[in-house]
């Protein structure tokens, strides 16, 4: 069972429906204890970084999430759920991320419109399990902040410069865009993610 973390933030139904659409068994999980039984975990997130970070703490999600990631099961952060993998964000000074990836989430460059609300072309810059190399994917983005492109970044889009669109470090994955709202390309990415379940890395 793929656990989609329900920590009181946003529209989670789409993520579950999209997972089901690609043939996975997915459930909203609102009890942190249930993560221990999951075969994979999805951490969605919309709204502000601070509000999501607060909700993670309020629901006692931080330790179970760290344990799930440490166990090596596939883990996917989406949008703000992706940003939460980092240490913090300029959007919400003082709010703590999960710190599973190094660095801070920063505001997009000043000369482009904020937020980026659009589809954008995502290009793999390193071999990975989510975005096929050499096959551009179109994904739907809604955000004003993003982590810097780092060694964990496996795909980027161009929005006033290269923006980290997808990361992977072992079984820990994250995407800035919304695969559950990105049509066929998004569904294909979710299918590839669900196929990681049971694969020994």
């Amino acid at each position, binding site marked *: 069972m793929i656990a989609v973390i329900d920590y009181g933030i946003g529209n989670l139904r*789409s993520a579950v429906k999209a997972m089901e659409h690609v043939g996975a068994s997915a459930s909203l999980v609102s009890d942190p204890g249930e993560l221990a039984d999951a075969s994979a975990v999805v951490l969605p997130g919309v709204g502000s970084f601070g509000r999501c970070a607060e909700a993670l703490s309020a629901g006692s999600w931080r330790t179970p999430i760290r344990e799930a990631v440490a166990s090596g099961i596939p883990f996917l952060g989406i949008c703000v759920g992706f940003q939460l993998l980092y240490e913090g964000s300029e959007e919400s000074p003082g709010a703590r991320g999960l710190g599973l990836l190094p660095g801070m989430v920063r505001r997009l460059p000043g000369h*482009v419109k904020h937020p980026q*609300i659009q589809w954008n072309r995502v290009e793999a810059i390193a071999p990975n399990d989510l975005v096929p190399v050499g096959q551009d994917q*179109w994904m739907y983005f809604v955000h004003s902040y993003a982590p810097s492109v780092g060694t964990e970044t496996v795909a980027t889009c161009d929005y006033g410069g290269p923006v980290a669109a997808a990361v992977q470090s072992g079984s820990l994955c994250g995407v800035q865009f919304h695969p559950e*709202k990105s049509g066929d390309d998004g569904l294909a990415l979710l299918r590839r993610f669900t196929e990681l379940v049971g694969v020994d890395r």
Partner: protein
Amino acid sequence: MQVTRLIPCLDVTAGRVVKGVRFVDLIDAGDPVELAARYAAQGADEITFLDITASSDDRSTMIDVVTRAAEQVFVPFTVGGGIRTIEDARGLLRAGAEKVGINSAAVARPRLVAELAEEFGSQCVVVAIDARRAEGRFEVVTHGGRRPTVLDAVEWAAEVAQLGAGEILLTSMDRDGTRDGYDHELNRAVADTVGVPLIASGGVGSLQDLVDGVVVGHADAVLAASIFHLGEHTIPEAKAYMAAAGIVVRPA
């Protein structure tokens, strides 16, 4: 890279799609979920559902439409019409809508924009503005065009962006349903003033109107209804036309 979005708009009443000419003379055009799924499969970048009756009876009908749409439409969709409270918005977002659009309720109580942005994030909040030309300015009208206000559309757009709107959906009441093209002057006045994305709406009668909406009107996204519903043009045709004119679009 700025990528222009193409958004078919479905005006819904009592669970059916209709398209009005100047907000009256309704013609039945089908099941909203079926149409939305068809447009998404053809490459529509988003879908907008506008609940144009929005009486309390229809509230549950719209939730049902959104719930069904969420099971088969995997592109973002916005629902507008009759949203007055945080709880109205929550119901639609939980049912699967990506964004909610508010119009008259924002005019009546501007703080609602800030409250929605605070609760759900700016990315969920589209402020719809209906405007018409009046004595050398653009006047905001509400209640489906029936009620004039003292607000200036450009100033109002700037104010709601300041309050936390993530996008502005701007409809020209003078053009809506006329097929004469968008009111580019109106769109440009808002797009060039306000920092959030602008969706142009009202008046599309040809594919060139979509191009002009971006090139002349400076819109970030273009919305149209009847040219698609009545089968005159398809989404792939529209995107190919826009791409040929040099506008960057997601390939259909």
